[in-house]
């Protein structure tokens, strides 16, 4: 067993070393893979707030990922076609500015998370899983039939959006942007887990009756966690769309929600670096095994099976044992 802190530092160093090495070797595709891992890790870190800290098994987090994606797609689409949006009599111009897009993604996914959370949190356990899944399907089919923005075919955005002072089409610069946001999200997760809110949320996951008995409302705690979680995943959705310069309804698919859960379980539920480790492994396997066989998901499934059966704490649990509460 090694201290979790050491593993965390090693993982972060590896995460930055790979694209640095790729830059030197002039392998831009590897940088893009690292960027993909960073964005998936950001989305999964969002899920880790709900799933890891709050114990909420959401099979609907693709909703927020998709909303983030479409926030980018819709705004950039109007900017690239020079047609303003018509919103209840108002005309709103599109934008290619990433900070604006991110803000819209955060706000829109936050609002969606409030609505989905308010209804879903009336249930728990398997019913919660089912109701979040149902909401996910609603958004998925809505996106499919949303002809104005490509329907089933999705939307292509020809040029990556802008960030002041950066050339976002340069892979390493875009990686840096995504990695910075991921690091900020990890910092938020780390502080959140130890904050009064995180302590109460953890207790609400373990013993809701106790939380009520000390005068707090466990459902409200979980709702706030769900909203923060959804916003983070929404931000990742906007970046993901920018990475591919493409949005489509598959961002809303329940398979993606499941993939996010897999990432978190693979890395370690509730652990700071769990999502990044999970995303790193996922992207690596996808790339390495995907080259060898089209059936690489079978191997991923087998790895997941081993993790769930023999290493409940995921990769972090395998190396570091159970989470140690800080004194």
């Amino acid at each position, binding site marked *: 067993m090694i201290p979790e802190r050491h593993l965390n530092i090693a993982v972060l160093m590896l995460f930055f070393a790979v694209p640095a090495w790729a830059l030197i070797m002039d392998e831009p595709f590897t940088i893009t893979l690292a960027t993909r891992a960073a964005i998936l890790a950001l989305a999964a870190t969002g899920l880790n707030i709900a799933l890891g800290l709050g114990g909420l098994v959401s099979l609907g987090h693709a909703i927020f990922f998709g909303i983030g994606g479409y926030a980018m797609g819709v705004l950039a689409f109007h900017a690239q076609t020079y047609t303003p949006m018509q919103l209840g009599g108002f005309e709103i111009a599109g934008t290619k500015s990433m900070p604006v897009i991110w803000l819209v993604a955060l706000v829109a996914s936050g609002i969606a998370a409030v609505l989905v959370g308010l209804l879903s949190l009336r249930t728990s356990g398997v019913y919660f899983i089912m109701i979040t899944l149902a909401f996910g399907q609603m958004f998925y089919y809505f996106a499919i039939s949303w002809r104005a923005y490509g329907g089933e075919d999705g939307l292509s955005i020809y040029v990556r959006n802008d960030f002041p002072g950066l050339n976002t089409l340069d892979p390493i610069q875009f990686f840096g942007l995504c990695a910075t946001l991921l690091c900020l999200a990890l910092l938020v997760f780390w502080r959140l887990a130890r904050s009064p*809110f995180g302590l109460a949320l*953890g207790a609400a996951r373990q013993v809701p009756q*106790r939380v009520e008995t000390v005068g707090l409302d466990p459902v409200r705690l979980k709702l706030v966690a769900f909203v923060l979680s959804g916003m983070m995943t929404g931000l990742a959705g906007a970046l993901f769309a920018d990475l591919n310069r493409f949005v489509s309804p598959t961002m809303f698919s329940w398979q993606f929600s499941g993939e996010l859960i897999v990432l978190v379980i693979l890395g370690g539920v509730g652990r700071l670096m769990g999502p990044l480790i999970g995303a790193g492994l996922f992207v690596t396997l996808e790339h390495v095994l995907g080259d060898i066989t089209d059936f690489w998901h079978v191997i991923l499934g087998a790895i997941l099976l081993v993790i769930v059966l023999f290493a409940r704490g995921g990769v972090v649990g395998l190396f570091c044992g159970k989470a140690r*509460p800080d004194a």
Partner: protein
Amino acid sequence: MPDPILTTTNLQKSFGALKATDSVSLDLRQGEIHAIIGPNGAGKSTLIDLISGRTQPDAGSVTLLGQDVTHAGTAARARAGLGRTFQISALAMEDTVLQNAVLGAMGASGKPWRFWRPALWDADLRMRAEEALRRVGLADDAGKRCAELSHGQRRQLEVAVALTLSPHAFIMDEPMAGLGAEGSRLLTGFLDSLRSEAPILLVEHDMDAVFALADRISVLVYGRVIATGTAAEIRASREVRDAYLGEDA
């Protein structure tokens, strides 16, 4: 006589045909320990749930410090000054002893909506939590994970978490359950001194503890209070003996 801290008036609760709570009226006065005893299935747990807000009564009311809290939830009653302990320890097992106590202190301060500064850095919360742990004798175990505690220590922590709330009334559901003779003796001594801070409604099977502690005892049988009185009165009551205490009491 000053107004009682806690009153129940004609509380009724049925589950199907079973009357779990049948016209229960009792009160808890400043400075006393009021014990509720009764055989298994007498409706003690249901009564506690009705008073703490976990269950809504079919009829009747619960008054806390002169306020009608019949329709208030558990959390609202806790904020109004009700401190409850559970028969089966309800603690966050993954967290440390100190974190569990800090949770109580946080509830009392009503401020869980802080997202950045670590909870354990808050000197005020920490002081309240450590004080409560010290009083139940868990100060040296503050850093232990709750799951590592012995059964007896978990019982102590249950009481400590209630203490962090500085409640106006305690409701304790079998705090002695599973404690050895020594543990029961220590806790009895502690509860004895606690009553001057806030009165205690005590549900307990340990008759030695009940008769040693209680200022008044109510006997619950089939959901009804069949007798309320001092320890001596209850001991002398023929009805209580027939129903519950048995010949050798």
